[in-house]
């Protein structure tokens, strides 16, 4: 499996969470997911990648952690997934995807605006084709979240 191009996303995620929320993260063992798999999370932010590689970057949180992180930025506790939580999760995936481009400068990549999917056990529609989807779980002192990446031609089995 060629997953060297995953590293810039892992580094960007850890740096973003540390800078934005002063929260240390530990990247756990990455694993392959099936395209039709439902996600065991409450909210996901999705960024499309185009240019010299095509794919998706998906950042997923349980509602409690998403609300807690939003509370840190807003300075007020959140008790439900509202516009601020959606805004925060979208901005975090935007920062991760944009910052990861620095580690992938040999490819000219374009990133889309983030989209949000929410609801218990939601599903992400990945592009068709033989692109493997790698999920990297992260642990923090406040809970777990995950980052999934599928990049045509760059990440191969």
């Amino acid at each position, binding site marked *: 499996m060629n997953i060297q191009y995953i590293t810039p996303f892992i580094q960007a995620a850890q740096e973003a969470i540390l800078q934005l929320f002063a929260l240390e993260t530990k990247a756990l063992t990455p694993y392959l997911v099936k395209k039709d798999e439902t996600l065991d999370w409450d909210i996901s932010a999705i960024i499309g990648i185009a240019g010299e590689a095509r794919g998706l970057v998906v950042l997923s949180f349980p509602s409690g952690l998403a609300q807690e992180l939003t509370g840190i930025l807003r300075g007020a506790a959140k008790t439900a997934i509202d516009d601020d939580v959606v*805004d925060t999760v979208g901005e975090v995936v935007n920062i991760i*995807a944009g910052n990861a481009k620095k580690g992938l400068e040999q490819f000219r990549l374009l990133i889309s605006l983030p989209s949000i999917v929410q609801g218990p056990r939601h599903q992400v529609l990945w592009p068709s084709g033989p692109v493997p989807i790698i999920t990297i779980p992260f642990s923090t002192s406040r809970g777990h979240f995950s980052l999934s990446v599928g990049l045509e031609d760059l990440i191969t089995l």
Partner: protein
Amino acid sequence: MRILIVDDSRIMRNIVKNTLKALNLVNETFLEAADGQEAWSILESQEVSLLFLDWNMPNLNGLELVKRLRATAKFQSLPIIMVTSEAAKYNVIEAVKAGVSDYLVKPVTQRGLEEKLRRVLQRGSQ
């Protein structure tokens, strides 16, 4: 000083505004816009002395707004600090070619914002 902060994320606009306030810019007037089109409307109708501008936004993105501003005589010397997640060198080069005064990669830190602000204001006073 009238400062316009343009970002489609309200959370990010607040972070930039609060970071600027923490740098003692408490007596400034802060204006906000959620995309380039809204920013253009504000810039056409109100005096703005400094612009903080995101890149990836709906309607009119930050890069397109910079090009439009630099092609308009009255905005040719408006200080523009691009604040974006776009961290690749080719993005920085593209933004500088389009006419941004400086470039800051998100996540925003107080130190990073202060450094860019000082540099842009110094250049403006020379």
